[in-house]
């Protein structure tokens, strides 16, 4: 899968900017009726099929169903409004993920009074020192959510710093290439590579007992 960088570069400044607020003014449609037919078709055929993946990603970022719901709606709403700058047939999934990630960061900036949702400082600390206190200090709210999913894997993912969790979901679950991940979250490819490695080390530590108990890892000499 290759990344269409044109669509991204055209859109990124809009997507990172909160220009979507509805303000007082005159009423008008986004598209003419002819455009609407074309864009509705693109929306249905190329964007909407990615809704499940986007919801999974949003849920992993937010750890909350309502917040994930809002984030996905917001993402599709923004994508629809900016379909003029989307090139038909280009990498719709990566484009949508980038919009979602930017929306999430913008919302986080607005709601920065809720620091337990994104722990960038913890991630930074881990990247600098290679040590994390995170495995021992899992947020209780996340723990409760994970248990309701009955999912040891969710708990392990939620124990990771946000930046680590993001690359794991994008790479191992959504199967984006390193190049696509670099573009979705605006980091160099080398950083994608090292972040993935650290994240996987943490996950392996966390899930090794589970992997053995569930029979994923066996000693084949037996």
């Amino acid at each position, binding site marked *: 899968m290759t990344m269409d960088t044109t669509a991204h570069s055209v859109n990124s400044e809009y997507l990172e900017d909160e220009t979507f607020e509805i303000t007082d003014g005159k009423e*008008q449609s986004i598209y003419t009726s002819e455009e609407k037919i074309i864009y509705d078709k693109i929306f249905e055929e190329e964007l909407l099929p990615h809704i499940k993946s986007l919801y999974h990603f949003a849920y992993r970022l937010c750890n909350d169903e309502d917040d994930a719901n809002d984030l996905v709606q917001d993402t599709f709403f923004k994508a629809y409004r900016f379909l003029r700058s989307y090139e038909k047939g280009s990498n719709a999934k990566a484009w949508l993920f980038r919009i979602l990630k930017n929306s999430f960061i913008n919302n986080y900036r607005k709601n920065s009074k809720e620091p337990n949702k994104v722990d960038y400082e913890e991630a930074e600390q881990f990247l600098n020192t290679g040590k994390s206190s995170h495995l021992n200090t899992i947020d209780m709210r996340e723990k409760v959510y994970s248990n309701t999913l009955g999912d040891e894997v969710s708990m392990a993912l939620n124990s990771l710093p946000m930046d680590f969790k993001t690359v794991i979901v994008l790479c191992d679950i959504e199967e984006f290439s390193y190049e696509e991940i670099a573009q979705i979250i605006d980091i160099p490819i080398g950083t994608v590579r090292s972040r993935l490695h650290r994240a*996987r080390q943490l996950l392996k530590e966390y899930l090794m007992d589970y992997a053995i108990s569930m029979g994923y890892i066996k000693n084949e000499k037996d």
Partner: protein
Amino acid sequence: MEEKDLKQMYSKIGVYREDSPYSQEECEIIIKQLEELLDGELSEDEQSNILKRIESCEYCLEQYKIEKSFRQILKDGVLNFTNNVIINNIKQTIAKIRNQTFLF
């Protein structure tokens, strides 16, 4: 080998095997390459080098299987979690939003 012994063997420092013929540093490099192999990020030459290594070294083969297992664990864990009601609600809301007239 008993499950508890297997857990004990892997418990100390992630996946590094104390009885490995390689140093922990060497193993780290191999693991990174195995990750990139599974991610489809290696060139053909790199792929063929690492595949030769997997074939000739039982520890590398074991690491490869562990890496593969963890990919599977993540995928299985996520597949268990799909709420179609929520997805349909989102679709309906998006459909409504798209048909609205916007104020600028």
